[in-house]
């Protein structure tokens, strides 16, 4: 599969996305008084969900098996989806299972500036998971998926801002955002930056993009690839990284994989480096830890398992044991009662407020809302704290007493 060949352009209904969108929006404004209280969009969506602007959708045009339990889905987004993602970003995908819509996020693996409007995601089936096995094994071409806007700060910098030397450290399905970055780098004109990729997989036949990575490393002079098969060689250690890429502490690094791998980078990076060199803290979502020269990390799963407050030791306020509270959304004036186990994000959505969100699992910081006053509970740890004026992640925080949000 030649990743660097352009995707065949296939704009919906023969119109380039931008023109089509423009046309529809003018038509929509003109006909809205006739369809009130619905919008023309509601009728368009019925004719073809891909024309729907308010609830963007995409159709799966091809499914390519990658390994026995992973597949790449080629998705043609409809007119409502605003294209133009940055390499490394993820795509919220809404999948209908038994009548219920579930949202998950998947890294975009197609190049960021590929012509045409098709994008790809590569999904590894979690045998105990709900959505991923469905996407990998039971999603035929033609399936409709709901799409959110591409987002995330784990991205490849723009051509002018890309550093000369890069390091990617990935494991398992964590290679997906990096694949999107590599495919994007390959398409850039001129000599590429010096790139090292250290990727771990259990075995060759379980390694995502195995053939393509090998092919790339062979063809592209600026890429050095080290594949590590953990079933035979064991997990990668700090010493391994030192040997494979001696200058790694001075490279801008993107790491995506299980927590253990990220720990190796943080701990080992810290150890090998004088204190003075460490830059100060950076954006909480994009980069992390003052250890390696700019370390960007992305996690696909929560560090701590999401747990209900009843099952975890609570923080300092025992009086509020497992109780929720009244949540007031100050700007909209809406008030709702919310249980201790319900994320504030959900409480807001149920009250009909448009709430910002991304991964919905405490990873992307796309759901930050200022807490005006009150105590919130971290659903991952059960810890209760008051954080007046702080930005809180509403997808993993619930009310622990009366709460006022600036929303």
């Amino acid at each position, binding site marked *: 599969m030649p990743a660097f060949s352009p995707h065949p352009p296939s704009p919906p209904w023969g119109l380039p996305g931008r023109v089509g969108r423009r046309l529809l929006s003018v038509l929509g404004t003109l006909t809205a*008084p006739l369809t009130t209280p619905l919008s023309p969009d509601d009728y368009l969506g019925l004719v073809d969900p891909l024309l729907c602007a308010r609830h963007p959708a995409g159709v799966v045009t091809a499914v390519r098996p990658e390994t026995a339990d992973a597949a790449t889905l080629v998705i043609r987004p409809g007119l409502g989806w605003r294209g133009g993602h940055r390499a490394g970003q993820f795509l919220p995908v809404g999948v*209908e299972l038994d009548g219920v*819509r579930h949202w998950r996020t998947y890294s975009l693996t197609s190049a960021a500036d590929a012509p045409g409007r098709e994008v790809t995601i590569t999904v590894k089936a979690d045998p105990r998971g709900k959505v991923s096995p469905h996407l990998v094994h039971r999603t035929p071409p033609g399936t409709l998926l709901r799409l959110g806007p591409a987002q995330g700060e784990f991205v490849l910098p723009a051509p002018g801002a890309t550093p000369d030397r890069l390091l990617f450290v990935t494991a398992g399905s964590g290679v997906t955002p990096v694949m999107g970055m590599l495919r994007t780098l390959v398409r850039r004109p001129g000599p590429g930056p010096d790139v090292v990729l250290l990727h771990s997989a259990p075995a060759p036949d379980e390694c995502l993009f195995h053939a393509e990575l090998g092919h790339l490393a062979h063809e592209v002079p600026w890429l050095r690839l080290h594949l590590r098969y953990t079933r035979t060689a064991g997990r990668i250690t700090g010493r391994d990284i030192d040997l494979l890429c001696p200058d790694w502490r001075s490279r801008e690094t993107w790491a995506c994989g299980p927590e253990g791998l990220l720990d190796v980078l943080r701990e080992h990076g810290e150890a090998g480096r004088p204190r003075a060199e460490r830059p100060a803290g950076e954006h909480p979502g994009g980069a992390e830890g003052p250890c390696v020269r700019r370390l960007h990390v992305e996690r696909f799963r929560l560090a701590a398992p999401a747990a209900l407050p009843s099952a975890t030791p609570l923080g300092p306020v025992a009086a509020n044991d497992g109780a929720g509270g009244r949540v007031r959304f100050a700007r909209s004036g809406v008030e709702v009662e*919310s249980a201790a186990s319900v994320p504030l994000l959900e409480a807001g959505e149920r009250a*009909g407020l448009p709430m910002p969100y991304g991964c919905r699992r405490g990873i992307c910081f796309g759901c930050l809302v200022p807490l005006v006053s009150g105590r919130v509970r971290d659903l991952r740890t059960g810890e209760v704290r008051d954080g007046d004026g702080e930005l809180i992640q509403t997808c993993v925080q619930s009310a622990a007493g009366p709460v006022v949000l600036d929303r």
Partner: protein
Amino acid sequence: MTSTVRDQLMPTPPSKPTTAHPLEPPPWTDEFGTELDRLRAEIVAGRGARDARYIHRVIAVQRGLEAGGRIALSVSLLPPAWLAGTAMLTTAKVLENMELGHNILHGQWDWMGDPAVHSTTWEWDFLTPADAWKHTHNHLHHTYTNVVGRDRDLGYTILRMSPEQPWRPVYLLQPLYAALLAPVFEWGIALYDLEADAVTAGRKSVRSLFGEIGRLFRKGVRQAAKDYVLFPLLAGPSALPCLLGNLTANVLRNVWAHTVIFCGHFPGDVRTFSEADIEGETRGQWYLRQIQGSADFEGGFLLHVLSGNLGHQIEHHVFPDLPSSRYAELAPRVRSLCAEYGVPYATGPLWRQYASMWGRVVRYAVPG
């Protein structure tokens, strides 16, 4: 998590038992409540793709009928086009209000997680804005069903429907204005949802009343412009018949909604309650009140769809947030449970419930 939130939206009464209760609740009340809870849990667990397909199909049929009706009415100088267009538009408006609007706004379909079919985002082709209606209907009416002095839907603040409501001479006219209300039902409901009486009673600020009047006005303008200005203008030479067709569709829909809704709580054998009855009401007692305060009517699939499944009013009041597509299968089970416990269950053909409702309107027009 979903069920937690839902349960909070459900009017769950405090479970503090009381001794001041005028009618001692039967000893099996809790057991009866548990049986109904179990029924509910069974339906919740079984909700799935079949239900989702159903509501999406109703939406598609409704929008298809609406589009078809509008197109036919645009050439309604031809009498057959007028008849077909008006029939399609009326059916579309009926479906839109009953099976879609009422039930979606109840949150019956929120479990699908589809923002396009959700109680928080839905707006309907009915004069009263969805938010205003959700407050008076979902919250006040469903919590205080048939409690004299608390349930404003009991006679809609203008009718006397029980002997406990003090008689006033104006009630002599109530058969007349109840009949006059039918064709303009959406206007009646819109004014009623403003809760002007709550302002005089000091339960609501004048400021929020004005805010609601503003919202109602804006929606009213849009609604009227669509049916009585824009579509007739677009119909060119067919402007007048188009306007008449739209008017007919709105009036017929109003009369139908009035019929279905009045048959839900006002037939003769439906009980009313006093405020003392609901003091410290348990969940079981709440169920009992909902059953005795509502009435079903019988009919086939089509009649039930066109009435938003409110012919299963009892089931709807017991489980207001379960998908309407499940009321038909719930009805015989709730009914046999009632028979088992000796709880009265009011049902009958639509015409009989309708006649009985009018009997009551006439009966309480006079003192006593």
